């Protein structure tokens, strides 16, 4: 694992090099904020969660050993923190409004996520509805499925890396990712097949 530059930075930080930690979070800030975004809708909250992850990383740096791949170490901390946050949110939500749905479907599409260049209003609307459908899908998934699915589909991890991150077996990951992908196929069916031009035409 010596060739892992992140592991090298972590070890340098353990030896007292504070700039090494700075390099670490500068390298991973964007990915972490994006990852946390898959668990909470509010951008400010996603940023707080990502900051929490780096603070936890800072606190546990002394116990880090390059035996664990840095990437899976980081995402394990992040996944557990985000799932914990969801549980807290659901608990608070249940207390506040016992009959309310966990995830309100009335939220406006995330405008930041829309293609802003020369997409037509129709395409922009479609993209917004698609983003909403994905958000709703993620909220419906059981938490392990959700974590495995996000790591696979949005973070581009291999099943082996996901297994290491979630501390489970590759065959369990295979099953989690498969069930979530089946659910995604159902949830995204109304949008038709993906088309290169961003249209939602009929299957050839």
């Amino acid at each position, binding site marked *: 694992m010596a060739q892992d530059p992140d592991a090298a930075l972590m070890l340098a930080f353990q030896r007292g090099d504070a700039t090494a930690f700075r390099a670490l979070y500068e390298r991973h800030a964007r990915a972490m904020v994006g990852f946390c975004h898959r668990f909470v809708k509010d951008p400010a909250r996603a940023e707080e969660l990502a900051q929490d992850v*780096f603070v936890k990383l800072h606190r546990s740096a002394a116990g880090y050993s390059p035996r664990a791949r840095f990437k899976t170490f980081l995402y394990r901390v992040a996944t557990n923190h985000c799932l*914990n946050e969801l549980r807290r949110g659901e608990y608070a939500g249940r207390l506040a409004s016992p009959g309310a749905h966990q995830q309100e479907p009335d939220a406006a599409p995330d405008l930041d996520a829309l293609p802003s260049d020369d997409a037509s209003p129709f395409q922009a609307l479609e993209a917004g509805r698609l983003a909403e459908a994905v958000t709703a899908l993620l909220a419906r998934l059981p938490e392990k499925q959700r974590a495995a699915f996000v790591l696979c589909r949005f973070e581009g991890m291999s099943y082996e890396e996901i297994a290491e991150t979630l*501390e489970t077996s590759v065959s369990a990951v295979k099953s989690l990712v498969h069930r979530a992908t089946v659910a995604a196929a159902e949830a995204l069916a109304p949008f038709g097949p993906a088309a290169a031009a961003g249209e939602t035409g009929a299957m050839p």
Partner: protein
Amino acid sequence: MSHPLDDLTALLDGALPPARHAEVERHLAGCAACRAERDRLAGAVARLAALPPPPEPSPWFLSKLEARLADEPAPDLRSRGILASLAAWKWRLAVPATAVAAAAAMAVFAVRQQRADEAALAQHLELLEEYELVASLGDVETAEDAAVVASLDELSPRKEGRP
């Protein structure tokens, strides 16, 4: 063979062993229903891959993080805490990484070390679950173990109802 529906996502992700991959492909060649299901899943995967990326961090993300880190103590690697000895003991016996096994191991440990460590262990028993996580992260070697591990309770996927 029976319809390999459960392997279709892994097939698309290139995650099947080569022999199984070839076997599933052979089945697909002769089974329209499975091909249709594969295409349905592939469509969803392509849809997801084409989604715009999540928003960028705000311009103040790094400065806020720096402000929070400024309040954190620097890591200290020189001294060892009780969890370090627990970790060493655990690795020697190669106890399976389950909370149950760890709890059983802890019970044995507690009996053996009763006179010396009973008080300290009592304080740390509640950290067992976190200890599983920490042990999995690698060596646990510092005096700050207790503090670090205590702060890790939020990371445990099994903990619920904590404030």
